[in-house]
């Protein structure tokens, strides 16, 4: 780190910020396109497996009674959860005027959009006849389908579509001044593209006046939305009678888990991006430290939720509930539960160390563990509870199929490909907000590199 500190300008100007962000957007080299090609190949493989599934039906998956929801719904909940931290960082921390958000919020928001776009694929992939996907939309119709607005699945449709729309609007609004900035130095097709996206923004007092009010109100609208969306997702399960699902703790438990996994994913993306794109002068160890503290806090909340959930099963003395939890810990899928506990409750405790919170390699490894742990958490809750439901004679444990695993890998590749493309062609760091809080950036640089310098 000390070698890098020599090159870092601890007293940047507006022009320095522009120069750093515009440098990321230089035409990429061969290695970048190889990376994109690799991700595209994996995405297409996932697409081919899905095509095969459409042709042959859901028999090519490991799904079967009683485990009708497994990897696809796990992926859906996982990606919706990942999407949460973006709006948390961009909207909630904006309202609280949190200083460290400015450098990282655009990346987090971008991650949100692409994570919701990935999550939205899975309810459709999960369908046996995906060409009837529009039957999911609850509206009065002539198809003898009753749109039941009392169903949590219907609430989920409204929650996810609202979340995707509002996150996209918030993201797009924030992008406009930055795109106008890069428009001024772009040439060729890029200039035309940025001119259209920026809508002709020039930063006049009139434009800023209405922009600022809209941005504030969008943040205000997005804040309760963040809390509501994952609560609604949790009610997909909690409203059911199934042991392991039917619990009042699910909404806060899912929201905390979503923020936990989402912030971990932000760091999983930011740490390599900071290294590859040379963003040490904009994303400092101070920013990483603060994000790591959020992971630590939410890890403790999630751990507490696991304890309370188990306590409530024991306290109920309901034999079916007790057996479900016994199977969760010690059944054939018990190893998944313990992987989840290790990744989500034990490993994040390392973040109590300030040295680890500011060391990129250990921090990156911890975030990978958190991502793995949170995926398993979703799976344990969803598929684990279904596998060991009321009737032991019906118990059946799902086995993974190549199709489900391939589509899951393809979804990760699709998400990373979208993020990588955005990071090179659009301003992945908000120049406008960094300049607005330039004194905070200088403070972050001094604090972040004080020890190394």
């Amino acid at each position, binding site marked *: 780190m000390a070698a890098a500190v020599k090159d870092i300008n601890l007293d940047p100007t507006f022009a320095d910020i522009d120069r750093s962000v515009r440098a990321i957007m230089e035409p990429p080299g061969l290695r970048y396109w190889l990376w994109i090609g690799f991700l595209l190949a994996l995405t297409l493989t996932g697409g081919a497996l899905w095509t095969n599934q459409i042709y042959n039906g859901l028999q090519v998956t490991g799904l079967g009674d009683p485990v009708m929801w497994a990897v696809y719904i796990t992926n859906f909940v996982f990606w919706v959860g990942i999407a949460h931290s973006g709006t948390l960082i961009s909207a909630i921390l904006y309202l609280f005027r949190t200083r460290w958000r400015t450098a990282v919020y655009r990346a987090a928001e971008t991650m949100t959009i692409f994570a919701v776009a990935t999550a939205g694929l899975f309810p459709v992939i999960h369908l046996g006849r995906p060409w009837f996907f529009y039957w999911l939309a609850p509206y009065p119709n002539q198809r003898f389908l009753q749109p039941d607005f009392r169903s949590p699945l219907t609430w989920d449709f409204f929650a996810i579509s609202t979340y995707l729309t*509002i996150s996209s609007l918030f993201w797009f609004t924030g992008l406009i001044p930055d795109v106008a900035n890069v428009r001024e130095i772009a040439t060729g097709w890029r200039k035309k593209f940025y001119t259209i996206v920026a809508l002709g923004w020039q930063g006049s007092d*009139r434009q800023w006046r209405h922009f600022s009010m809209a941005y504030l109100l969008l943040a205000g609208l997005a804040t309760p939305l963040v809390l509501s969306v994952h609560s609604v997702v949790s009610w997909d399960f909690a409203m059911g009678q199934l042991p392991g699902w039917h619990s009042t703790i699910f909404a806060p438990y899912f929201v905390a888990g979503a923020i936990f996994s989402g912030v971990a994913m932000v760091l999983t993306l930011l740490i390599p991006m900071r290294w590859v794109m040379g963003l040490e002068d904009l994303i400092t160890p101070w920013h990483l430290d603060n994000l790591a503290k959020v992971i630590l806090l939410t890890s403790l909340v999630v751990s507490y939720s696991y304890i309370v959930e188990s306590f409530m099963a024991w306290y109920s003395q309901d034999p079916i509930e007790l057996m479900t939890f016994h199977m969760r810990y010690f059944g054939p899928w018990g190893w998944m539960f313990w992987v989840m506990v290790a990744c989500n409750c034990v490993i994040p405790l390392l973040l109590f160390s300030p040295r680890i919170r500011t060391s990129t390699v250990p921090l990156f490894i911890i975030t990978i563990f958190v991502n793995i742990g949170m995926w398993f958490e979703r799976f344990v809750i969803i598929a684990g509870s279904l596998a060991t439901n009321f009737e032991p004679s019906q118990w059946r444990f799902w086995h993974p199929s190549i199709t489900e695993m391939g589509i899951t890998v393809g979804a990760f590749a699709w998400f990373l490909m979208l993020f990588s493309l955005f990071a090179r062609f659009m301003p992945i760091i908000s120049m406008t907000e960094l300049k607005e809080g330039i004194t905070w950036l200088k403070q972050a640089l001094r604090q972040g590199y004080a020890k190394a310098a």
Partner: protein
Amino acid sequence: MSAEVELVGAFADEERLVHCIGQLKAAQTRFRVFSPIPSHHINSAIYTRSSFVRWFVLLGGITGIVTAFMLTIGTSLEWNLVTGGKPIASIAPYCIIGFELMVLFGGISALTSWILLANLPTFEPLSGYRPRFSSDEFGLVVRCAEADAERFESVLRDAGAQEISREAA
């Protein structure tokens, strides 16, 4: 009546610009500011009232709530099947949809209203705009009679404008 001109002053400093805005307001002349960042100081120096965007958002939010209850209650009455022993029109669960559509309609209203009120999209540059005003400098464009141009040039210069140019309005 003498011809009008526009004076374009470039500022490196927000504080000096705000000071200059105060003087121009006192002189009751027309001006426009360009800024690379959103500035509460600039906004409150120019405007005394908040943006109308908030009223559009309120209207959008109310429309969302009304739409949600019309959709849910109306559809339930049309498909009057009792499920789970619950009332045909179950208000409590419909509040969730009411909340979601309030946010959705309010957010869409926020975006459309600020874009329209800001006169966007526009692909013609506003007079006096310079690309560097989107990057690292603040711009102040004063429209005045040619006879007053020298007086306002000195106001801009005294306020700390780094560069002043004169253009036909």
